[in-house]
């Protein structure tokens, strides 16, 4: 059999066996005990040729209704932003995407520099001293931050705001249960973490307080006040941020936040049904030797030419094994590259404009929707590009009717918060036009 990914002809195989001195390929597998050999063919569908495969995949993809065929007002941790045309051609350059981790820096200078520039961009955006080259996604990045904070503070209690994405909190619980940090929850009122309750909960046993901003409800937390409260007991403030919001919002670094993480998907990465996404991670130089995952550093060769290498590897699993700061190995490098291209394509003004349009359009939608008698605002807290409204009929029913008109309505919050049954989390990014927003408003008016 010759298939396009398998170059050997029968003659090749015969000649190679002769060089090896084996009678058959079978002989090469003689170490595998007969008792455990598979004595039948794998029960898998028969091979498809390329045109057959294309037809099949198009059929499967065609059974979905993607945001490119609908008008999307759903966010909740995955956002439909415009992706500039330059991003995909760059990450499709196969020198990048077919490479392995940069273990041989002399022939990986381009990728290493791209990752170093990415680290720089994330540090600039978050207002932090340094950033790492990537973690898996928003949820696991938060869990890595919690474990690191416990190691730094030498404490094992993590206080978590209920205004953090419920999935992130679930991931956190999964990691915490076995690693051994305890989770204490702090409630949210009016869409914001309850600072008075937080003050009562935290103590010198608290390693870290975890906050998301804009949080799951879209509301912007008061990082200054939170930082003061958290640092008062010697705990670390960890925030998960939406990177696009930092086009207009004061960065966490300005408030003395200790670790900044987040979901990098909004930075030029397709929705792709939830992954691959990008966990970003930024912190202070003082904590750099405790950070999880790959870091690229600038150095020079022995003739003085500027170059880049993976550095601070003494933190990592392949060197430190059970004493490593994390078990992460493969991460999301290509997504970091996409995020870097996105940020450089937009530039200083473009990111600011994108963030500003998100806010303006979301507030326009908020004003119009809450002007409809049957829909009422739920919170009065300031928000970025997501907000919550109470619906006159079950949210699922609202969404069925919006879907009939080609729209993906907001997220049903009753799924995650019993007190928010009947409430919908609506997201409006810069990509939505006034016409599309007005279509949503007309659709809701008709409920």
């Amino acid at each position: 059999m010759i298939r396009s990914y398998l170059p050997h002809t029968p003659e090749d195989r015969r000649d190679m066996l002769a060089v090896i001195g084996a009678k058959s390929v079978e002989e090469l597998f003689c170490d595998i005990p007969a008792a455990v050999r598979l004595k039948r063919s794998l029960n898998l569908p028969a091979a498809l040729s390329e045109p057959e495969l294309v037809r099949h995949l198009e059929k499967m993809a065609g059974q979905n209704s993607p945001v490119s065929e609908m008008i999307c007002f759903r966010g909740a941790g995955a956002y439909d932003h415009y992706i500039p045309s330059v991003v995909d051609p760059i990450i499709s350059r196969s020198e990048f995407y077919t490479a392995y981790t940069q273990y041989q820096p002399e022939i990986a200078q381009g990728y290493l520099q791209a990752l170093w520039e990415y680290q720089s961009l994330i540090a600039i955006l978050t207002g932090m001293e340094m950033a790492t080259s990537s973690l898996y996604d928003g949820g696991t990045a938060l869990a890595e931050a919690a474990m690191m904070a416990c190691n730094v503070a030498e404490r094992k209690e993590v206080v978590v705001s209920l205004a953090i994405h419920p999935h992130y909190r679930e991931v956190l619980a999964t990691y915490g249960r076995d690693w051994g940090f305890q989770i204490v929850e702090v409630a949210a009122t009016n869409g914001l973490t309850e600072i008075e309750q937080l003050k009562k909960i935290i103590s010198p046993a608290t390693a870290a307080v975890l906050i998301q901003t804009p949080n799951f409800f879209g509301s912007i937390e008061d990082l200054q006040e939170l930082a003061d409260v958290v640092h008062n007991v010697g705990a670390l403030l960890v925030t998960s941020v939406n990177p696009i919001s930092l086009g207009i919002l004061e960065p966490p670094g300005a408030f003395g936040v200790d670790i900044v993480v987040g979901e990098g998907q909004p930075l030029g990465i397709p929705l792709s049904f939830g992954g691959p996404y990008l966990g970003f991670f930024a912190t202070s130089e003082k904590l750099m030797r405790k950070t999880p995952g790959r870091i690229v550093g600038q150095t020079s060769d022995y003739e003085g030419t500027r170059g880049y290498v993976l550095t601070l590897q003494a933190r990592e699993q392949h060197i430190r094994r059970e004493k490593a700061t994390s078990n992460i190995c493969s991460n999301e490098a290509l997504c970091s590259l996409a995020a870097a291209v996105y940020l450089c394509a937009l530039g200083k003004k473009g990111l600011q404009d994108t963030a500003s349009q998100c806010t303006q359009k979301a507030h326009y939608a908020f004003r119009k929707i809450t002007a409809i008698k049957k829909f009422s605002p739920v919170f009065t807290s300031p928000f970025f590009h997501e907000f919550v409204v109470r619906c006159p009929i079950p949210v699922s029913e609202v969404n069925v009717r919006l879907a009939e008109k080609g729209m993906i309505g907001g997220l049903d919050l009753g799924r995650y918060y019993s007190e928010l049954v009947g409430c919908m989390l609506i997201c409006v990014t810069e990509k939505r036009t006034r016409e599309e927003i007005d279509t949503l408003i007309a659709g809701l008016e008709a409920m």
Partner: protein
Amino acid sequence: MRQSKSLIFEMSRPGRRAVDLPECDVPTEKLESLIPQKMIRKSEAALPEVSQQDLIRHYTALSRRTFGVDSGFYPLGSCTMKYNPKINESACRLAGFANLHPLQDPDDIQGALAVLHDMEIYLAEIAGMDAVTLQPVAGAHGELTGLKLIRAYHRARGENRTQVIVPDSAHGTNPATATVCGLETVEIKSNADGSIDLAALRSVVGPNTAALMLTNPSTLGLFETQICEIAQIVHDAGGLLYYDGANANAIMGIARPGDTGFDVVHFNLHKTFSTPHGGGGPGSGPVGVKKSLVPFLPVPLIVKEGNRYRLDEDLPQSIGRVHSFFGNFGVIVRAYAYIRTMGPDGLRQVSEDAVLNANYCLAQLKKDFYSPFSRYCMHECVLTSKYQKANGVSTLDVAKRLLDYGYHPPTIYFPLIVEEALMIEPAETESRETMDAFIDAMKRIAAESATDPQKVTGAPFSTVVGRLDQVAAARKPVLRWKEPTA
């Protein structure tokens, strides 16, 4: 040849941009009236400002300073650097996949759930397991998920077993994962050929053994011949057997971990199933389990009812969520396309050819480089620079000299238990002519090591930078760009 490349920050000029965005078409209000002043940025984020062509040239130049599988032979042991089919890249970019929001309603996502559901079945069949979760996004993430499943299994039986046995030949992720899972690593010495020392294993198993983590074929590229005895010893002690699928490219359709006594398996779709490594991800690390561990799988589960699929989050014994959504869907679609392309016979042929290629390289090189084992290897072979060492040439030098010949070097200094190791994995997608050229380069380097060792110890000569100062990089880390002070 030696030349640094300007940074994107150094190319920035105020007022340039690489994409034009539309004007805001809704009535706007002053930002200060929408968001409290103290929360608004006081100064703009200093992102670079470049034109579109300059941006493209910058990254094109960076790509040309990077070596991928498409650039040339990449026999990096334990990493399975096989060809990444182009149709897979188009597959994951189909609008119905790439533009799907993870929280859309069930009616909108039936095609995606069908792909995930079928993929679970395919991988379970290849692994010989009863169920699979696709949520872990990397091998190490799969290991973590697998160990959590094992902990949950023991807990449900009223046992708190806290030790994970790991051979000293294992990948670093095994012990590191045990730590993240709150477990203690018990390292056992391997035999010289990397196999498990049964006496050593017997001496450490006991009521506290949660699991043994094993890579098979081992990190030395050899199949663990005593696998049935090992399984017996671990199971008799009440522990479970974890299969690290890093080397699964050797066994598809030939032997299944589930049939050799393993209880939990992870695969690396970015190794065995042809998805690109991306320069360090995104990957995907699905985990397969035997029936007794199914109740503990992470949420959500994909359930098929008639011809419809739905997501089930109601699993009281589940370890919980391990990823924000459903794992690296885009990577899973690529691997799905690969399995459908290869079919059952094709996958078996993959493993046969991978093993054939490794043995071919071994046979051709074992005179010039020391071969520590006199038996057939599986999909990768371990050689060393023992002969070259006599002339002051190390494995690192050999690797660096290979760069001058246009190759990505093999994995070096791993496994840790073999001195000066060179681990060569010529994936099945490589032709005999490609390997012959590589073998020739290796032989030349062996000859140079004897006749002109400086040519090897001073290498590389042809790359854009020479050997880099790693010590300075770690001692005084420069991890980001900073505006030069005037």
